[in-house]
């Protein structure tokens, strides 16, 4: 394994493509650096810093879509969209210092994935540089699109091993008109599970430690006033509830979550052929997903 000896910081996608084309050693992709320890060491001579690829590229609030540079942080994305009563509900496990690019590259979802969509559902298109140094502009900025083979889905969750994501086009949602966070103390976990599959289900519900009366759950209700009132009645019927601030969710996401899936990546003939086809020299994040062979 070669030691990382230097940092390269492209200022544009064109510069990045030049770097990848000319790279004879491995590149370790790095934006905010929150996902560097994905379970396997990356064999790379250089760290590729993408900080320059940051900021909002296009945002028309009434279309409920946004395009941002890959190094834009989740915090920035949240602030920009909140100003228009919207959000991009990626809300992955981890902190809001993480970048949009890494969230899409790792397809990391969070406690809201089942109701508001996973990264795979929320990404409409992206720009990336593959291992050949080709600049790919995949998908689009509209909410429905089947033109051509789906390079967007291919790059989402590929951990940067097929291409370096530089720009991301995302679907947004309106923030719920009423948005409440509760701590539920309940003895009967099965009743909670039944509620989660019912029409009055919450936006999210995650275990929040054990209390004197059994499991505690952090619950988020969202929707119009009538819906939330009915959902709240169903919640109160489950157990004792106390109101909490929505900021609890950032804490839960930062502390909780599944281990990075890269540690149990499974290669097969097809995925090995994909890696070889898109990055034949194994320049991008070599070793991150374990050995290819």
């Amino acid at each position, binding site marked *: 394994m070669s030691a990382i000896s230097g940092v390269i910081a492209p200022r544009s996608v064109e510069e990045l493509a030049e770097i990848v084309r000319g790279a004879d050693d491995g590149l370790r992709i790095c934006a905010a650096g929150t996902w560097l320890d994905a379970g396997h060491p990356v064999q790379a001579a250089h760290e590729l810093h993408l900080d320059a690829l940051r900021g909002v590229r296009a945002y*028309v*609030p*009434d*279309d*409920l*879509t946004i395009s941002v540079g890959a190094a834009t942080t989740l915090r920035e994305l949240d602030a920009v969209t909140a100003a228009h009563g*919207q959000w991009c509900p990626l809300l992955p496990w981890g902190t809001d210092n993480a970048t949009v690019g890494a969230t899409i590259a790792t*397809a990391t979802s969070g406690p809201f994935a089942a109701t508001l969509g996973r990264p*795979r*559902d929320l990404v409409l298109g992206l720009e990336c540089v*593959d291992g050949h140094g*080709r*600049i*790919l*502009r*995949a998908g*689009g*900025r*509209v*909410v*429905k*699109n*089947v*033109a*051509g*083979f*789906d*390079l967007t*889905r*291919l790059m*989402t*969750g*590929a951990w940067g091993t*097929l291409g370096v994501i530089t720009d991301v086009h995302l679907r947004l*949602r*309106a923030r719920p*008109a009423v948005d409440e966070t509760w701590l539920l103390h309940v003895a009967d976990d099965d009743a909670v599970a039944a509620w989660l*599959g019912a*029409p009055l289900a919450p936006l999210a519900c995650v275990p929040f430690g054990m209390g004197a009366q059994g499991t505690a759950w952090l619950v988020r209700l969202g929707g*119009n*006033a*009538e*819906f*939330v*009132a*009915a*959902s709240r009645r169903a919640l109160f019927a489950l157990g004792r509830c106390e109101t909490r601030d929505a900021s609890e969710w950032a804490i839960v996401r930062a502390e909780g979550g599944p281990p990075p*899936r*890269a*540690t*149990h*990546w*499974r290669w*097969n*003939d*097809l*995925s090995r052929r*994909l890696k070889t*086809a*898109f990055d034949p020299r194994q320049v991008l994040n070599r070793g991150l997903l374990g050995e290819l062979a």
Partner: protein
Amino acid sequence: MASLATDLSALVGPAHVITRASALLAYESDALPGYRKRPSLAVFPGTRDELIAVLRRLAQDGVPFVARGAGTGLSGGALADGAVLLGLHRLKRILAVDVAARTATVEPGVVNATLSRAVAAHGLHYAPDPSSQSACTLGGNLAENAGGPHCLKAGVTLTHMLRATVVLPEGEIVTLDRGDDGGYDLLGAFTGSEGCFGVAVDLTVRLLPDPERVITLLADFETVRAAAQATSGIIAAGILPAALELMDQATIRAVEESIYAAGYPIDAAAVLLIELDGAAAGLDADAAAVDRLVREAGARSVRSATDPAARAKLWQGRKKAFGAMGRVSPHLVVQDAVVPRTKLAQLLEEIAAIGARHRVRVCNVFHAGDGNLHPNIPYDADDPDEAGRVHAAMAEIMARCIAVGGTITGEHGVGLDKLPYMEALFTAETLDAMCTLRDVFDPRRRANPGKVVPVRACREWLGAVSARVAGAQA
């Protein structure tokens, strides 16, 4: 070909192989009647093992093939120009339904609506609902990443695909999933690959619980612009209807003059069909908000229905609009562009102007909530002057959709029909990468050859062809 036909007959039975030219005529087009291509033969396997055996036999001779479900596609995608047509409609068994997990595993030839009917007793349904759902197959839906009115809220086909067992063109059998347990999103890459990556032998889909309550609203407008603005107003207000469809006057008249008459006001310039569904609590409040928004945008009247029969009547005209246009003239071009929803009003006016300039009759009936336009032009393909004007108008419409940041197909696929627009939409490098992806699944490019990506866009392909020619000459 004789030995191939003999071998295929031995595999699937002689009754399920067609070689006679007159019988092959039935397979020379899909639901877009402007294109006709004759397959060299057609084969219809009846079991999973037969399908695998057929594909391996085709691989042995390197024969190109085109998989076909019900032939309801609208892109010319299921046409086999001299290739073997592989019909999958006999593979129509529902293999398993898991009510608790809300999933079903089916063979590729199961008809979309058949699955929903089969699970209805459990209060479940399969959400994507292409207008052809009473005929189209789930294998075809997977290949096209099909949409439908209710995909606005529920998401298109891919959202509902969990797993597929696929035979790759060279005969390898692979299981594809979304990679959530540690792997590339191979099912995501396969979905919408238009039959160019392989053939699914079974697919596992997500089922959704039926909504507690459904409200369908019909709003009519004096201008198309007002209807389009009402659409973007609803989306911008943060309401996510189950479906939000727009029909213009030309479509309303075609429907009302047909046996599918749904009672739409024929003097309206446009109607919006808006469906809200979900928990009973809060649904009336959303309906009231929609009612207020459409009236503010200029709706003359708003009708609403909650019981299934009345709702079905409101929907009938929409679901049968394409059929109703069949009365107007012998052929129909159907387009499928998508534009940002804030550009809908502008685009509809531009489409009307383009239609007038080329003296063609454009009927708009589309998924307004997604910005997914379907400008349709009924015409007579045997009249070369009219056909020329129709194609010129469509090319201009597509160019405008691309120019405002849209795309050329939202749910029908590229097929043959939209090939000419691919180079206007994607860079050469991006098209080249699409070819790279295809080659991983189908290195000899035998599955649905000549579709989706213009062959000249593939640098490596051109290299491979010249190498093969050189090899053959050596």
